[in-house]
């Protein structure tokens, strides 16, 4: 057995009122990639924050033994000195500064009062090559894509002489291609002897890259699965540990739904980029959706899916939009602005619930009614009692877990926030619902509940468009699937005929066609 680099022994961390970690034991061998999986709020991030000193020594119980020594970290600097470097989920780069400046921010070369820029940039370049970037370290961060920014974060960590690298959801904002490149880079580092901990929701990636998988549930480590066998561990096996039971079916069956007439029809839809109007973001797309039908739009990030949905939703994205839109067979012209789209009974449930979907500083009640205040008010005067009743009704219907609808949305978990977002748009009484990544960043149990809600919507005769970059979800939930790549629809198939292979093949072919 290889040497144990890190051992966390009997770690208990309590916040006022909650035990976030309860007697957790966790071991990492030198030179392995160790994955931490678990539902949101299970305690993964808390554990890593204890390790890196964000929660300083003394605020938790238990021991951290690193490289054979018991450690007491009082802040991040302490842990970084020993080579424990954490890369957080949200990128922490300053867009207006160069890559080199970013990499050595707070860790400047030379003297604090006289920065040695030559060393800074030459060393930065060296680490950039190590992560496979050919960019100059004098490039501004805003000029490179998210995938490359993630690599810069890793280069920054390497520059701190990392021995134990912790990556928190490193691929959550990357497309499939960039994700794969990142995972392969991790495997390369492993060969050179680096030890890594990866936190991820994407179980296929975990199965691909990790040597061992530790499952965290309700603040405790449940089990550690060995993944060094010839066959990678199945996702079902990991999920079983995460939810504590076998998930026989990840996607609920839709029963007794009769698909009706075509309700939404979009033809030759073309959308141009708002800042570079000569660029077509959506290129001559035609689609239709029937009542009671769930239509999946699959595509990688950046394929133009969000842009398509938002341009349909009252031109809230894009310029020079051309094409025709019909609702119930009649051509409609929706004016610019979400209000007119809502009047035409269209709803768009954003992929970015915190940025574009919810007002976090307001209550569940206020968020639920925001898109349809008319329904609970008389001549612009809100009927507070009616509003409360509506919020309660949706809380029960969607099983949102909260002490009361007066709770601030910012205090809810991701899954519950997503339910509030759905409640808001269901209350707007749309006929057409455009759901953009409706299960992004939420845990397995909540996902199942969201799928049930989608089925209920279809059963109620709504037409549902579900945009997703998770293939199993698209395959499991849709009646029909459109495949999108680089702004174009490159295929359409019935769910019954679709497989992961033939969808990916379509995308690859279309890519080569250019």
């Amino acid at each position: 057995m290889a040497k144990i680099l890190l051992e966390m022994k009997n770690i208990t961390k309590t916040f006022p009122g909650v035990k976030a970690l309860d007697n957790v034991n966790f071991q990492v061998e030198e030179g392995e990639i160790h994955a931490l999986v678990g539902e949101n709020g299970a305690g993964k991030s808390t554990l890593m924050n204890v390790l890196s000193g964000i929660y300083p020594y003394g605020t938790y119980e238990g021991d951290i033994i690193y490289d054979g020594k018991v450690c007491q970290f009082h802040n991040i600097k302490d842990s970084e000195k020993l080579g424990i470097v954490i890369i957080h989920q949200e990128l922490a780069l300053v867009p207006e500064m160069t890559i080199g400046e970013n990499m050595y921010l707070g860790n400047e070369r030379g003297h604090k009062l006289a920065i040695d820029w030559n060393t800074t940039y030459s060393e930065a370049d060296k680490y950039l090559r190590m992560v496979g970037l050919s960019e100059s370290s004098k490039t501004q961060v805003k000029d490179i894509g998210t995938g490359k920014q993630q690599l810069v974060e890793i280069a920054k960590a390497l520059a701190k002489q990392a021995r134990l690298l912790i990556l928190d959801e490193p691929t959550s904002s990357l497309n499939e291609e960039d994700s794969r490149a990142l995972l392969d880079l991790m495997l390369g580092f492993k060969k050179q002897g680096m030890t890594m901990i990866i936190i991820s929701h994407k179980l296929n990636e975990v199965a691909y890259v990790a040597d061992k998988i530790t499952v965290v549930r309700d603040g405790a480590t449940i089990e550690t699965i060995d993944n060094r066998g010839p066959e990678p561990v199945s996702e079902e096996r990991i999920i079983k540990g995460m939810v504590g039971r076998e998930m026989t079916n990840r996607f609920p069956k839709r029963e007794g739904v009769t698909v009706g007439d075509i309700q939404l029809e979009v033809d030759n839809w073309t959308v141009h980029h708002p800042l570079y109007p000569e660029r077509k973001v959506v290129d001559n797309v035609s689609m239709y959706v029937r009542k009671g039908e769930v239509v999946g739009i699959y595509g990688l990030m950046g394929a133009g899916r969000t842009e398509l949905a938002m341009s349909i939703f009252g031109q809230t994205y894009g310029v020079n939009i051309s094409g025709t839109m019909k609702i119930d067979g009649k051509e409609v012209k929706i004016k610019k602005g979400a209000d007119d789209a809502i009047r035409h009974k269209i709803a768009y449930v954003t992929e970015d619930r915190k940025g574009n979907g919810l007002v976090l500083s307001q209550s569940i009640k206020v968020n639920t009614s925001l898109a349809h205040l008319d329904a609970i008010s008389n001549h612009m005067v809100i009927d507070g009692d009616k509003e409360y009743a509506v919020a309660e009704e949706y809380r029960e219907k969607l099983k949102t877990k909260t002490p009361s609808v007066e709770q601030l949305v910012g205090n809810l978990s991701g899954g519950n926030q997503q339910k509030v977002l759905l409640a808001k748009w269901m209350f707007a009484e749309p006929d057409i619902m455009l759901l953009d990544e409706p299960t992004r960043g939420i845990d397995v149990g909540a996902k199942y509940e969201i799928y049930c809600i989608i089925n209920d919507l279809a059963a109620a005769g709504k037409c549902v468009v579900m945009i997703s970059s998770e293939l199993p979800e698209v395959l499991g939930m849709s009646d029909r699937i459109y495949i999108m790549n680089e702004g174009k629809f490159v295929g359409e198939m019935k769910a019954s005929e679709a497989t992961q292979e033939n969808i990916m093949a379509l995308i690859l072919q279309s890519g080569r066609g250019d």
Partner: protein
Amino acid sequence: MNENRMSVGAFFQKYTMIIALVVVVIFFAILTGGKNLLPGNINNLISQNGYVFVLAAGMLLCILTGGNIDLSVGSVVCFTAAVGCVLMDNDVNMWIAVLAMLAIGLLIGAFQGFWIAKLHVPAFIATLSGMYAFRGFSNVVLGGYQVSVTNEAFLNLFGGGAKCYVPDFIRQAMGTTGKPNLTCLAIGIIAVLIFIGLKVRKILIQKKLNIHQSIPAQLATTAVISAVVIWLTFKLASHKGFPTVLIWIGLVLGIYQYITTKTAIGRHLYAVGGNEKATALSGVKTRNVYWFAYASIGLMAGLAGILTAARAKGIDPTYAEGYEMDAIASCFIGGASAYGGVGKVSGMIVGAVLMGVINQGMNIVGVDSNFQKVVKGLVLLLAVVFDVLSKRQKR
């Protein structure tokens, strides 16, 4: 934890500023030997700070949209007052002058709001330019001199001169004179009864709909507010009666309380400040929300211009300087968020009263006016620091 019970810590956190206000009042009561609680001084506190309440109400809406402020209000107050005073000086009917002042305020607000809402000019800059421009216009209108107001009806109605009180109709009808002022008492008691009636109705509806909110706590706040109002009423009644300026303050605060809590536009103000993109995608014309906020503070600047002109019995090109800062400070001391989306009219009132009490207390004690500014600055800083710290503990 039982929802109906509030821990001592949570109680202090929620009512920090009210507790601070009580402490400050007691502090000055001891320091001045109770002089600050004399009926005359209570009356002055209201009359002197009339403009603060009115401007802070308008300012609150701007701050709600995202921590935006309006720097121009001091200059706009001076300008509208200047126009009104010059009109009345030329024997124009008082009501025409009043309407002109309100209309000019509204127009200026809408004008500045246009740049902010439609052309995305940062509010700070748009109103900074207004601050310079309207100070200059005031000077032009006044020709650099002071212009006085002699119109008695105007002064009486808007809180200037010796007779700016609601006449004691009741004693007039009874054919007696003297104190206390019975009309003032009647107004206060009726107001409290209406307030209690509304609260009870609200609690009954809550019970019917099964909304869980602590009834004892609501009754307690109702009782405290009623007691304070009755106490104030007695104080005012034993002085000269109900100051007319309080009618305007009450009207404005009532309307703004209603706008922020009951109306769709009020909801939109909070939503835009909390998350503008999400609000736009919910079908709200967010730019119009900004426009509304700035038009509203323009109108309030017009009203404050009227009150200022009446109280000073005229206007001088240097009047109303720094009024915008008093309004901004009241909102922030009252718990409005500098990032927008959070803030209440009730908090703003406490903030404004706190500033007023400190000002007046220092005046009575005889603190040097320069040092008074230092204290004001420190109070603002402390209030915001307290707010930031108490929020951090929650995480």
